[in-house]
């Protein structure tokens, strides 16, 4: 007895929702960024499950691309956060409000 596709998709949606919750409620820029990564990983889980259950296997190749884009995104994003910390001495989103109003 194998788990159904429904179970995988619901699990990946739950992971995505947890990541989204983190993006909404956390105040630390780095933790928000980690939650974004969790959302990407949840999307890859759904892709792999769909390609396994439909027998197409194109989703598996797409996961490769998602991993590459995630790596590039993390490198650039962390560089931006470090530059921001150098300029403002904080990474709390409450205090980074220059664009507000």
């Amino acid at each position, binding site marked *: 007895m194998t788990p159904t596709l429904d179970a995988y998709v619901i699990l990946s949606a739950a992971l995505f929702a947890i990541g989204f*919750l983190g993006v909404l409620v956390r105040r630390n820029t780095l933790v928000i960024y980690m939650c974004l990564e969790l959302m990407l990983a949840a999307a890859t889980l759904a892709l792999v499950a769909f390609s396994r259950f439909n027998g197409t296997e194109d989703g598996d190749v797409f996961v490769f691309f998602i991993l590459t884009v995630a790596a590039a995104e993390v490198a650039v994003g962390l*560089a931006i956060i470090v530059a921001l910390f150098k300029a403002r001495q904080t990474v709390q989103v409450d205090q980074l409000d220059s664009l507000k109003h």
Partner: protein
Amino acid sequence: MEQIAFACLSVFTLACALGMVLSKNAVNGAMGLLLCLAGIAGLFVQLHAYLLAFILVLVYGGAIVMLFLFIIMLLDMQGGQPWKFRKLQLVGTLVSAALLIVGLNLLAVHGQFGSGAPVGKGVGSSLDYYSYQLFTTYLLPTQVLGFLLLIAMLGVIVLSRRHPETPEAR
């Protein structure tokens, strides 16, 4: 047997994700992300995508989480409120949760998910399948991703360079 393994892995993954979101310390959050990714790699193994599980642990666990830990320790962030609920955020959370539940319900009822067994035997760890696909059907995205990585590398170099004309600290 597979059901039990799936249940254990999914509970573990969800618990680690919740731990990451709710932990006050950013280092604990990074460790939660690492464990959560390990759980997702286990789920990949259950889906017969062994190579993807290996690459997930290698790239995410080995490179990305380590980079996060480096930056957390470099910036040495302390204090500040870890989380805060505002009215707007609460409304957004409720609306998105409702949309998610409704969408999943619609998919499960009217969608073409089916309850059948997996089709085919899965890609498994066959590198030749991936390499054939990457160099035939997906040749253009592969090239574009190569350029994307190059541009990202240049961007990181430019961003982390010191600018002599701007003051370092205000």
